[in-house]
């Protein structure tokens, strides 16, 4: 019987057998699986969003008699681009987005590059702690600084209560300083400079020192070397940092939300949010598509400029070994300046956050007003409309649990999926299939978080094919967080697997191990050892995530960040700050726990 089976198998055409063997390769199975999944989770939702924007939707009857639900129309696009509301809906927010994005990018890059140069190339004292402290702003949610800014600068006219500055000095702070483009730019750059700093110091450190040393040996002065050798060599990295920072600031949501909406200063991202909240989905989707297109163009520019995919920078193994530029007489003045700056951008905001969370009554910044009411106080109708203190509030504790759950699950899932993706890409290197997987895993990078959230509303409001209606569930938050992280996890997975796949796996193959056995005993253990910093990073970024999930949370699934946002909207000043402070505590706790398990360097995993 067996012989007959074997003989009939032999009769099957050799090409067919070869094709079957090709399909049975683990990397091919994984690749096909992922492509299907990602088509479902990224491409199709995007398509549906585009479709929604070009068809009549329910409720459009109030805008036009011709509305026929489901049929093709350019109405929504015309509405956003060429109607009476274009100015308010598109042009002004577009202008505002450009102003704030360009402004914060320039400022962030200015600060980041100077700091990067000081830390890597000069003999400034305390370089290491400064470098460590400089990355802290990036670990905090970008809007934490916005909240501190409000605490510091808000004026009585708009907020109803005084900011610290007004309280301490009596000076009426102008509206232009308290809200609007100026604070948005300043606050954004104080967050994103850390991003630019990491990119640029990485590039500076990996610059081959012999290139500069040979110029010096030929007689060039320090400044000449800097001008003619270092800066031109750094130009690609600098431009890349510029473009990447710009693409981040384009889609930022939290800061413009806190600092812009009180004065009706809208950016594209906050406009998107408002449209969704008003039920104008089609309008919101038009804006989202616009945001995605602009973001994709900037990243494409970066790709063309640098040649490396996605502009990721790897920090070279060898550190910069050249001589450091002596700062001489400037050393201590600069040090003081840097310390003051770091204090103002890191310590002060967080400190203010904590301080205000201990203030019992608004407007009174004196020490006698300090209390633990908002942290552990009982419910008291005089304060915050009867909400109990943070740690007693079951809603808050539930939200905290949701935040932690979400971040841990996302981090672990993203890591494992990252390794599997990395395996599919690395083992299939050179094939069209592997390239396709790589490119699809990259797509979420192109989409600003707020736009991505919009995509998922449209997608999961009803059941779609085999996927159930996930709107309102915790699962959709995990899903979107993991998918948004795919570009990072696949990159991390690829670099982990690259070190392992190859001869280490082949030795197991020759010894007779089948794929599952090899994966379990060789690839997974070896690839995971490098993953800790990636897992930590995912944990931190998910904990502070706002714009990605703000459109998808419901009261049952709320997390700490969205709760903070709600409280800010309702002007619960102290509770808002207490919540934000709580998030900061959790983030740092997570960082220390991870460091205990394995010494991790977040900077190396940050992009």
């Amino acid at each position: 019987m067996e012989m007959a089976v074997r003989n009939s198998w032999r009769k099957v055409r050799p090409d067919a057998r070869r094709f079957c063997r090709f399909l049975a390769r683990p990397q091919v199975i994984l690749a096909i699986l992922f492509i299907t999944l990602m088509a479902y989770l990224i491409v199709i939702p995007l398509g549906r969003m585009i479709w929604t924007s070009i068809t009549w939707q329910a409720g459009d009857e109030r805008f036009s008699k011709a509305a026929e639900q489901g049929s093709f129309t350019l109405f929504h696009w015309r509405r956003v681009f060429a109607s009476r509301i274009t100015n308010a809906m598109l042009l002004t927010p577009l202008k505002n987005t450009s102003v704030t994005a360009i402004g914060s990018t320039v400022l962030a890059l200015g600060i980041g590059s100077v700091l990067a140069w000081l830390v890597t190339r000069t003999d400034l004292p305390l370089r290491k702690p400064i470098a460590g402290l400089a990355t802290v702003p990036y670990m905090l949610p970008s809007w934490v600084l916005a909240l501190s800014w409000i605490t510091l600068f808000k004026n009585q006219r708009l907020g109803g209560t005084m900011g610290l500055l007004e309280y301490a000095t009596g000076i009426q702070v102008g509206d232009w300083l308290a809200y609007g483009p100026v604070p948005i730019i300043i606050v954004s750059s104080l967050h994103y400079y850390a991003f630019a700093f990491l990119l640029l110091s990485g590039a500076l450190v990996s610059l081959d020192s012999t290139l500069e040393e040979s110029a010096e040996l030929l007689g060039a002065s320090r400044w000449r070397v800097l001008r003619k050798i270092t800066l031109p060599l750094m130009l690609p990295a600098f431009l890349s940092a510029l473009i990447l920072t710009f693409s981040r600031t384009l889609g930022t949501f939290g800061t413009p939300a806190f600092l812009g909406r009180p004065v009706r200063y809208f950016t594209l991202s906050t406009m998107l949010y408002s449209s969704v909240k008003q039920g104008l989905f089609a309008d919101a989707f038009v804006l989202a598509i616009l945001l995605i297109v602009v973001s994709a163009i900037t990243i494409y520019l970066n790709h063309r400029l640098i040649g490396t995919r996605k502009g990721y920078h790897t920090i070279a193994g060898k550190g910069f070994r050249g001589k450091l530029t002596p700062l001489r007489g400037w050393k201590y003045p600069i040090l003081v300046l840097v310390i003051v700056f770091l204090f103002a951008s890191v310590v002060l905001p967080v400190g203010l956050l904590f301080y205000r969370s201990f203030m019992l009554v608004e407007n009174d910044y004196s020490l006698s007003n300090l209390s633990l009411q908002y942290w552990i106080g009982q419910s008291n109708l005089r304060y915050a409309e009867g909400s109990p203190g943070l740690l007693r509030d079951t809603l808050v504790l539930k939200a905290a649990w949701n935040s932690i759950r979400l971040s841990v699950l996302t981090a672990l899932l993203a890591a494992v999926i990252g390794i599997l993706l990395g395996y599919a890409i690395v083992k299939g290197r050179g094939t069209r299939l592997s390239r396709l997987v790589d490119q699809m895993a990259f797509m979420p990078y192109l989409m600003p978080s707020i736009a991505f959230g919009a995509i998922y509303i449209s997608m999961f409001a009803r059941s779609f094919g085999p996927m159930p209606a996930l709107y309102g569930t915790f699962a959709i938050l995990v899903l979107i967080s993991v998918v948004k992280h795919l570009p990072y996890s696949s990159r991390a997975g690829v670099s982990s697997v690259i070190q392992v796949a190859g001869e280490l796996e082949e030795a197991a193959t020759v010894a007779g191990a089948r794929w599952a056995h090899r994966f379990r005993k060789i690839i997974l253990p070896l690839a995971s050892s490098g993953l800790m910093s990636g897992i930590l990073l995912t944990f931190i970024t998910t904990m502070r995530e706002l714009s990605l999930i703000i459109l998808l949370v419901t009261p049952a699934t709320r997390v700490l960040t969205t709760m903070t946002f709600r409280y800010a909207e309702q002007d619960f000043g102290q509770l808002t700050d207490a919540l934000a402070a709580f998030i900061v505590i959790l983030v740092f706790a997570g960082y220390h726990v991870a460091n205990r398990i394995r010494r991790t360097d977040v900077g190396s995993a940050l992009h």
Partner: protein
Amino acid sequence: MIGLTLRGIVKHFGDVIAIDHMNLDIEPGSFLTLLGPSGCGKTTMLRSIAGLEEPDEGEIRIGDHLVFSSAEGVSVSSGKRGVGLVFQSYALWPHMTVFDNIAFGLQLQKLSNQQVAERVSEALAHLQMSGMEERYPHELSGGQQQRVAVARMLATRPEVFLMDEPLSNLDARLRMDMRAELKRLHHLAEATTVYVTHDQAEALTMSTQIAVMNQGRLSQLGTPDEIYHLPASLFVADFIGSPKINLLTATARTVDGHPRLDFGSFEMDYHSPPPVQDIVVAIRPEDISISFEPAPDAAPFVVYSALPSGSELIVQAKRDDTLLTIKETRRGIRVAIDQPIWIQCDPTRVNLYDRKTERLLASE
């Protein structure tokens, strides 16, 4: 002991052809070295035998077992081919102890725990690494890691040993010792070994058969003696031998009924007329002798460089456009740059090649 047969192997990587229609018969029990410059396809051949690469065309048999056939769509997985492989980088799993590294393959063979332990000790003992079971690879020196890699291959008792430049990462001294040990293990295990290297000295000392490869093709298959003394083509002649063989263009003439080889600036008597006139003459450096006085049949040259090195003296001698490399092994001989010397060589020790086809011309 089993032999291997490879027929019509073709392998492309994109547009590059790595193996260009190669046939190879490996005798049971032989130690066959695949020798050639980088990129000649030798590692690809080895990996094809192991099942880590799949050729585009061809047939591979290990013993009676057809392990690969493009025509019939057969490709047996590596683990079922009965081969063992030692990688150039050793490929020891860093998260496992020496014991676990070696036991891995044994456990897949469904041996009992006791049998596994016995085989591991046995393998380690063969490589003088007993007692190292609980060490991790990073705690071992390069030489020790190499031994563990060999032990891992031995433990599963494959009938065919495959080795991919296993000694290239070791220092010169260790390499010499390990060559001898690998030969011994090959003999003890009664295995058939396929060995890849670019080091021709290694190939000459270790092999029973050498397959010289160039650009995906087999240039010559023969014993070390045959390869060294009768290289079939100019490529093989040039590749084998250190220092390099002397290759001189010449024209075959007949003067007074005697065959002579005309090098342009000098001439040499020969014993029989070659079939072609335009030839290349190959002379090994050790087959040329130096004298300090004129002699009949000796051509005058001038010393270009002299490199003494303990047991021998390498001299380069120049005349007009001709530069000869000479290996002088007599003790106490010293020359100075620009010193005039006279060159002689035994005509029966030279090989003649057809200048156009680059193939060896049959000699008597």
